[in-house]
């Protein structure tokens, strides 16, 4: 029965995209002139894996393209080709093309053949004419030979039996490349087993007949050896026998010709032999997001059940009730731990987002003729996958702005007594239950005079209004605001910062800017770690309970009748720290029946959203608690002013308020 390969496509694409990301990262780290061999190896391995995979799955154009790429990389690895800026640019473009091709195949779209053919032609040209890059061929070969001899005097020795299956070659693999890759791990002595090689006349040229016994000396560990065979795994027999320590020096290159007459592997000391496969598996597994969401959901249900039990047990009396209470307390503790563990499963390091920036900064800086160094810190800070997916675009915008508007041209910087090379810093850290992401640059900073002038000319600020520095900075978050003199394709269309702020606020976060003219600016984004659980204040309106996210609450107060003013046709306002804030009666929005009608009987909660504050009139505050957010949309539909629902300890449902939406709705009502 033929094996259905399509079932592996998903994994292949996922792994390939990840591998391309790491290839891109390695390319960006590659020093022109003196590249680190390990980086070239990393890049080569990616190309090799993708080539192998796409050949296996029959994605011929990708396999063909990566073959050319692999050849270039192989030349670089062997030292026959030197890394120059133009080659590094070409390789980066290849990453883009491979990504595009993979994406096209993944989505069943046609591949942009012209694009890949052009680039492949350039790669082939480079292979055919490496003269421009390769200054010396002879020393390079010597260097390659030196690699073989470079095994340390006292080394471990792995014995590898490598028998490719008959289809090994047709699947796009080549034992030669495998052995070359092994050679990067240490000294390689391969003796061939040609016993299966048929008579010349019977030989099928693309069938693999040979097998090898390889002695690998050096300090390589078994997992890294297995990595070499990773893609070829299912089309070869592989046996790696445990290391033996040999005190003998590695043979000099002159004796490198193996003696096939004695193919028997050297005896191996038995007590040291360990099972070869068990220890080699990596420490992580791939799990579909849906499965984790399902788990999360179940844990959410458990939390509710546990809350219900806690409430019930409070009412119990008599023998055994105390014991039950102790048990429930223990359950509560375990539940919290379980909940935190499941949440941690959804957490990913922010490096997933940060990794796209080195390339972007490099390309933009080149395009704009600026010198920019990107510094990343706190890449290991973890946050929820959903938050991560949504924060990428706003960050891209901020970094682009820093490069385009912030960092000055080199000559301007030098004239200002700064180093010609500007710095953009991306930093992430945890602060309490939040994650704080900072994008800062050492550029010119925000030009407050120009911002103010622009705002005045647009009528956003009155001609005689006096604004504080902070208020001026806030202006850049107004819709349609841009001070860029020219609209470039990088930035300046003024559709930026307001969208950035809106996206951040939709995630329940906030953004602020600090700047000093001449020394740079700093954008600070604060986000909740997760969207799945909210710290909420439960409020009562009649028989209903609503949850207000704690992050939006400024303060709660009881109004005195004299604090309230009524404006004809514009509702009620109350005086709050020198400002007049509109009052929104929650029961009117949701059509509930309140138990308190007079403002001075109930409570007013000052809440903030969309840069506006309102007073939310409710009957009573009930308590603070963490609630598990359940979306209404998949099962019901979107409800204005509500971001989701949760189930309370007594089993009743409470709506979680979406204050941005609520404030907008309330403003529309007043206007109407």
């Amino acid at each position, binding site marked *: 029965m033929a094996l259905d390969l399509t079932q592996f496509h998903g994994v292949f694409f996922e792994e390939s995209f990840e591998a391309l990301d790491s290839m891109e990262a390695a390319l960006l780290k590659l020093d022109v002139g003196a590249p680190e061999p390990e980086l070239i190896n990393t890049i080569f391995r990616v190309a090799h894996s993708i080539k192998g995979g796409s050949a296996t799955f029959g994605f011929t154009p990708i396999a063909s393209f990566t073959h050319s790429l692999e050849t270039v990389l192989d030349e670089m690895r062997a030292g026959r080709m030197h890394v120059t800026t133009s080659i590094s640019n070409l390789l980066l473009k290849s990453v883009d093309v491979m990504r595009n091709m993979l994406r096209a195949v993944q989505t069943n779209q046609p591949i942009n053949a012209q694009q890949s053919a052009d680039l492949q032609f350039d790669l082939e040209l480079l292979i055919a004419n490496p003269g421009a890059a390769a200054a010396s061929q002879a020393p390079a070969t010597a260097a390659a030979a030196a690699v073989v001899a470079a095994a340390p005097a006292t080394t471990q020795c792995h014995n590898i039996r490598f028998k490719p299956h008959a289809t090994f070659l047709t699947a796009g693999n*080549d034992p030669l490349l495998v052995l070359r890759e092994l050679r990067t791990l240490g000294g390689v002595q391969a003796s061939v087993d040609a016993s299966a090689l048929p008579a010349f006349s019977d030989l099928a*040229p693309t069938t693999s007949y040979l097998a090898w016994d390889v002695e690998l000396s050096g300090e390589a560990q078994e997992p890294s050896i297995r990595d070499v065979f990773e893609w070829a795994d299912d089309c070869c027999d592989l046996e790696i026998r445990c290391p033996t320590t040999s005190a003998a020096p590695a043979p000099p290159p002159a004796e490198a*010709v193996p003696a096939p007459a004695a193919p028997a592997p050297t005896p191996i000391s038995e007590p040291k032999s360990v099972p070869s496969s068990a220890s080699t598996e990596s420490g992580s597994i791939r799990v579909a997001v849906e499965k984790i969401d399902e788990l999360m959901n179940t844990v959410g249900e458990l939390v509710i059940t546990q809350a219900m039990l806690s409430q019930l047990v409070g009412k119990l009396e008599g023998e055994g009730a105390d014991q039950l209470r102790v048990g429930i307390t223990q359950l509560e503790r375990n539940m919290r731990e379980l909940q935190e563990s499941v949440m941690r499963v959804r957490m990913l390091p922010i490096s997933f987002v940060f990794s796209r920036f080195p390339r972007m900064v490099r390309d933009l800086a080149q395009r704009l003729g600026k010198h920019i160094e990107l510094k990343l810190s706190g890449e290991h800070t973890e946050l929820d996958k959903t938050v991560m997916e949504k924060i990428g675009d706003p960050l891209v915008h901020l970094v682009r702005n820093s490069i385009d508007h912030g960092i000055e041209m080199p000559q301007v910087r030098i004239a200002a007594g700064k180093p010609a090379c500007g710095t953009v810093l991306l930093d992430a850290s945890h602060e309490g239950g939040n994650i704080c992401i900072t994008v800062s640059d050492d550029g010119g900073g925000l030009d407050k005079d120009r911002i103010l002038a622009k705002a005045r000319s647009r009528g956003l600020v009155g001609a005689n209004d006096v604004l504080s520095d902070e208020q001026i900075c806030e202006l850049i978050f107004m819709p349609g605001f841009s001070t860029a003199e020219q609209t470039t394709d990088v930035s300046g269309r003024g559709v930026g910062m307001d969208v950035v702020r809106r996206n951040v606020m939709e995630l329940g976060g906030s953004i602020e800017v600090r700047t000093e003219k001449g020394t740079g600016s700093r954008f600070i984004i604060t986000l909740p770690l997760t969207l799945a659980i909210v710290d909420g204040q439960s409020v009562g309106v009649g028989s209903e309970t609503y949850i207000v996210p704690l992050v939006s609450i400024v303060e709660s107060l009881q109004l005195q009748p004299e604090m309230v003013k009524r404006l004809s046709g514009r509702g009620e306002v109350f005086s709050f720290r020198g400002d007049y804030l509109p009052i929104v009666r929650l029961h009117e929005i949701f059509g509930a029946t309140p138990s308190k009608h007079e403002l001075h009987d109930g409570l007013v909660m000052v809440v903030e959203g969309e840069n506006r504050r309102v007073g939310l009139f409710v009957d009573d505050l009930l308590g603070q608690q963490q609630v598990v957010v359940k979306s209404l949309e998949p099962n019901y539909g979107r409800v204005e002013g509500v971001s989701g629902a949760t189930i309370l300890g007594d089993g009743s449902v409470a709506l979680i308020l979406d204050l941005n939406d609520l404030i907008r709705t309330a403003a529309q009502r007043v206007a109407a």
Partner: protein
Amino acid sequence: MKKRAKTPRIKRDRGTLVLQSEYTTAAAAELKAALVPLFAYHETIGLDASGAMRIGTAALQVLAAFVRDRRAQGRLTEWRGASPAFVDAAKLLGLTELLDLPAGQPA
């Protein structure tokens, strides 16, 4: 659309087969086809791999079977040149002896 660079064809020159600069797995069949008519030659056959810059295992396997079987029938095959890349590949695969490649071949 740009055209791809052409690789030189197999040349026969007074009993010497000059190998192409590149042999991918797919091109191994082409190599075998070129070797088949030479296989039965009683005279010594020369192989010149001095221009072989990139050679895959498939092609080396074809060459190894060719040289081995001719040797078994008492017919000689001689290397008239081999590029460092060719020698390196043969050595790494442990095929030097099977190919009758001189050990002193410059690497």
